[in-house]
């Protein structure tokens, strides 16, 4: 019975099948990846300590896999697969401090300042250092979007369990 319902529903396509909002697609992909992975983690690791790093790893993995149309996700995947101990993103706080210092020092030199900042931005973006500036700026845009969606997804997951 349920199967029939499902089949029926399957036949109903949206009027514009290609126009699924990418945000929705991303969030769904993301959750559908992350949740089972976490469960798997849970079940596999009998020790109650689920390493925070592994969770981060899964989180980033899910991010990279659900945004495969973007260049940075490829780099992220590379990073993840290459390192068993996932150190995906540089810790934000230190680089934040660094930025402030830098901008304080380079008061007069306008262009150098901007370039410094662009370089910082490049470091934040996975794979950003391998791209040129224009490309990176474009990628940053959708990286930010995906990060936002990721936070929403994570929040909902966390809220659900509390």
């Amino acid at each position, binding site marked *: 019975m*349920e*199967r029939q319902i*499902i089949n029926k*529903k*399957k036949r*109903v*396509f*949206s009027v514009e099948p290609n*126009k*699924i*909002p990418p945000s*929705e*697609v991303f*969030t*769904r*992909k993301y*959750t*559908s*990846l992350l*949740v*089972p992975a*976490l*469960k*798997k983690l*849970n*079940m596999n690791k009998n020790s*109650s300590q*689920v*390493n*925070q790093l592994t*969770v*981060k790893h899964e*989180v980033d993995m899910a991010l990279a896999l659900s945004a495969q149309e973007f260049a940075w996700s490829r780099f992220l995947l590379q990073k993840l697969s290459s390192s068993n101990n996932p150190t995906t993103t540089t810790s*934000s*706080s230190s*680089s*934040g401090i660094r*930025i402030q210092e830098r901008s304080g020092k380079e008061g007069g030199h306008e262009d150098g300042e901007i370039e410094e*900042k*662009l370089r910082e*931005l490049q470091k*934040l973006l996975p794979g950003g250092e391998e791209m040129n*500036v*224009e490309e990176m*700026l474009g990628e*940053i845009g959708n990286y*930010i979007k995906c*990060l*936002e*969606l990721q*936070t*929403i*997804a*994570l*929040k*909902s997951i*966390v*809220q*659900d*369990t509390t």
Partner: protein
Amino acid sequence: MLEGLVSPENLSLSSMDMNVLERLKWLQQQQQQVVSRTSDNSPELLQILQFHGSNNDELLQSTFSHFQMLGSGFGPNPNIGFGPSHEAMDGCISRTSSFQMDPVDTMGVMLKNSEENRTISSKNKRKSEVKRREEEKTEKKIKVEAETESNMKGKSSMSNTEASSDTSKETSKGASEIHKLDYIYVRSRRGQATDRHSLAERARREKISKKMKYLQDIVPGCKKVTGQAGMLDEIINYVQSLQTQIEFLSMKLAFLNPELELSVEDLYVKQLQDYFTNLPVVIASKPSIMVDVPLFPLDQQGSLDLSVINLSQTTSTEAPSASCETQSRSLYNTSSLGFHY
């Protein structure tokens, strides 16, 4: 559809990615235009047209003289820059199809300038973009018609197609436009250098500023700050805050993980709620259907229904998303949703 004036540099259009059909039409148009002006000129112009991108100075000169005769009647769009057209042979195709047939007599001016600038060796390079050189009065606006531009297929690289930079003298009337197909329109003002490198630089800067604008829209609070440096600062801070947030959440998740008993469907519901805050009501029923196809095989389904697995096996990735979409539409009030595309 190109509506353009006949100009030598348009010859180079042949080297462009134009449909034969388009070119024919354009030729026809040219003929018509020419005919409307002076009849006897047409054969010669046609001759010019047929001359595909040759470095033919004589021909150019003859055309110039021709146009001199035509004088103001032609009212061409000076942008075609007959002056620079010589140089334009290399690279300036005034694709400015929007040539308004303004009866402005710039011809004389242009020709004068052309004499000066004719030192450029005219090599015919492939013009993928339209670059027009200066010599314009600043009031002269070339409205670029997007449709015509879009008709032309062009490659993106701008640097190759710039006209030779040797003549980079600022012209007295200094407004010029560089048209790049679906790219940025760079306008150089009076007194600005118009050589190849600076033009490329400028175009590049325009691109970057375009992207910065886009980022400005995305990053909240970026609009108040002016200047690129401030904006970049904001963006960096925003990205960092997002990343710390994610770290924090994942820490929390790790902490809570043993208690993980969620179903994917409820999560979707919640997420939709969070994202579109004005959603009316939550769906409690039929949770098992609203699941997307997992991208990697699920080993342990946990609380997911079997129906989900069947879905994943039988359907492509598109269909479930589509079906989910429709379901969500049916379940929620579509009008109130603010889906972002």
